[in-house]
């Protein structure tokens, strides 16, 4: 069962990326997933930090780009591109610890039998450009700091003012520092208020809507930019699709493109995180399939849906995508 494997991989990486640093395991500073560097002893650092960072990121003055630090910045960018090419959106659906955290909230909600808060199609479409705005914000502010003399306290703008992972993930390392309001000066205060407020809102959002933050996550944009040259392919056999809508309803990201696609094969959209829930709940044989180069990792089949959604012969609740 794919979703069982996914649970194992998610939780393995959650432990590795949150506590790995304490055992000397560190996956570098260019991970395409939200492994938050503010967690003491984290097992790897999210690339967004390096992107905005002043030593090896956009915030470095133009002059330094020629020096050792410039090389380091390119090194991190190259590492990020390599990692993204290798696993594409698997980073989001299978590895990102913050995604795993959000999934826990969803399991909890489902266990309590509470209904998911549905977004209307128009509301969902209005949310799509938010992640581009956040990405722009994350790129422009460091450049302003480096070249336009913006005050240094605006450094790491996305991490310190928007990202809910910064206040929430360190809780797993026992530090509530990032939940505190920083009264050092107005900028740090505004940033910390924003950060804590957004984290509070996201916490509830995660509970009621599956993978709520992933709707706004700029990492999706960065990974999506490399989809053409990445070997990972998510394809739909348009000719055999029954149009039953399972893929659209079961998708944590409420993606409609997979269901509505009637002409071309590629259905890896910008929001998709390759959690393969749609492929697991598609009752038509061979319609949806995920490929890596020429190997088919997994494709939909009627027997799989039967095995997945039918509990063996004892009464009781539906064996649902837990």
């Amino acid at each position: 069962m794919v979703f069982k494997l996914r649970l194992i991989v998610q939780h393995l990486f959650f432990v590795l990326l949150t506590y790995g640093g304490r055992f000397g395991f560190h996956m570098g500073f260019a991970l395409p997933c939200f492994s938050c560097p503010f967690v003491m002893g984290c097992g790897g650092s999210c690339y967004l930090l390096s992107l905005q960072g002043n030593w090896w990121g956009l915030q470095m003055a133009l002059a330094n780009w020629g020096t050792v630090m410039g090389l380091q910045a390119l090194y991190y960018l190259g590492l990020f591109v390599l990692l993204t090419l290798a696993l594409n959106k698997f980073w989001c659906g299978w590895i990102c610890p913050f995604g795993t955290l959000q999934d826990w909230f969803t399991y909890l909600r489902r266990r309590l039998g509470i209904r998911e808060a549905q977004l209307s199609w128009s509301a969902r479409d209005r949310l799509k450009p938010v992640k581009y705005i956040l990405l722009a914000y994350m790129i422009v502010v460091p450049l302003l700091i480096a070249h336009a003399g913006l005050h240094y306290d605006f450094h790491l703008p996305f991490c310190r003012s928007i990202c809910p992972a910064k206040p929430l993930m360190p809780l797993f390392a026992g530090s509530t520092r990032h939940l505190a309001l920083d009264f050092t000066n107005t900028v740090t205060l505004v940033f910390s208020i924003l950060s804590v407020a957004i984290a509070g809102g996201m916490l509830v959002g995660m509970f009621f809507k599956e993978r709520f933050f992933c709707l706004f996550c700029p990492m999706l944009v960065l990974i999506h930019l490399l989809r053409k040259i990445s070997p990972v392919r998510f394809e739909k056999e348009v000719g055999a699709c029954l149009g039953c809508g399972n893929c659209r309803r079961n998708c944590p990201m409420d993606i409609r493109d997979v269901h509505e696609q009637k002409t071309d094969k590629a259905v890896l959209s910008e929001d998709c995180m390759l959690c393969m829930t749609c492929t697991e709940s598609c009752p038509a044989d061979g319609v949806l399939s995920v490929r890596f180069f020429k190997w088919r990792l997994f494709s939909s089949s009627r027997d799989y849906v039967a095995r997945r959604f039918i509990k063996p012969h004892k009464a009781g609740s539906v064996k649902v995508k837990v």
Partner: protein
Amino acid sequence: MASAVSSWAADLVSGDCPDVVWITCGEQSRRTDGSITQHYWLRSNSENRLQCFPDLQWEAYYRLTDGDGLEEGYSRAPLTCSGGVPHLEINCRTNARLELTLVGHCGGKHYTAQLQHALFGKASAGKHAPSERFGELPAGLRRWNLKPSRRNTYQQTGDTYHFIYHGNAGSVESVSVLEKGRRLPEDLSLARDGNLVYTPAHDPHLDRSSPYEVKETVLLAREAAEGREYLTTFTLLLHRSYSAHLKRLHGCLLFAGMAVLAAGFTVIFKRRPWYR
């Protein structure tokens, strides 16, 4: 150091000697092998310039303590005279804590200027080579001893620093704090056994500037014994406080408040009004 430096009297009449002398940080440069070189200058508060003598009577002792343990004795650092002001530079290959002590005398005044600084060398390998190994500091030297603690490597306002004054504490006339040469109104009292606890106040200007901004606060102890005057200074390179301004209660309240607000909004508005 482009900043104005009080000059040093040409002759050695004790009247012309500067009242207070302390160490200040110069710029830091990173060598190709990743190690960093930190420049230090001597500054004084009196108007006559601090002039290098033909035969420098200042000695500089320094000790680098890096992550894996204390380095035994002190080493001597070559003091040079550039631009008429005594100057020295320390090269540090790995992350280490520098303890720098300069000793000198002019006329009847004996000066001791000290400083502790955290240096982050990222050299690929090897320990930093001491220029000239030297045993202990000269005996009987009046100096401040800052009790090392993990928190003090990154000196920041609002932290408490425990000093022990080596010299006969009884004859210490006054202990004062100087900023850019001006005496701050606080007066500190030295305990009988020479212990002093000093907590630098937060500086709104420092808070408003960048976290890497450094404010140099000098701790001065005047002691007069047997007709000589001992002026011992310790330079604290204070950054703005890293965690003093954090208010976790407010943060948690805001967090909880937002969560409740969002929950209310979601339950009321965003869950479609279904028949059930």
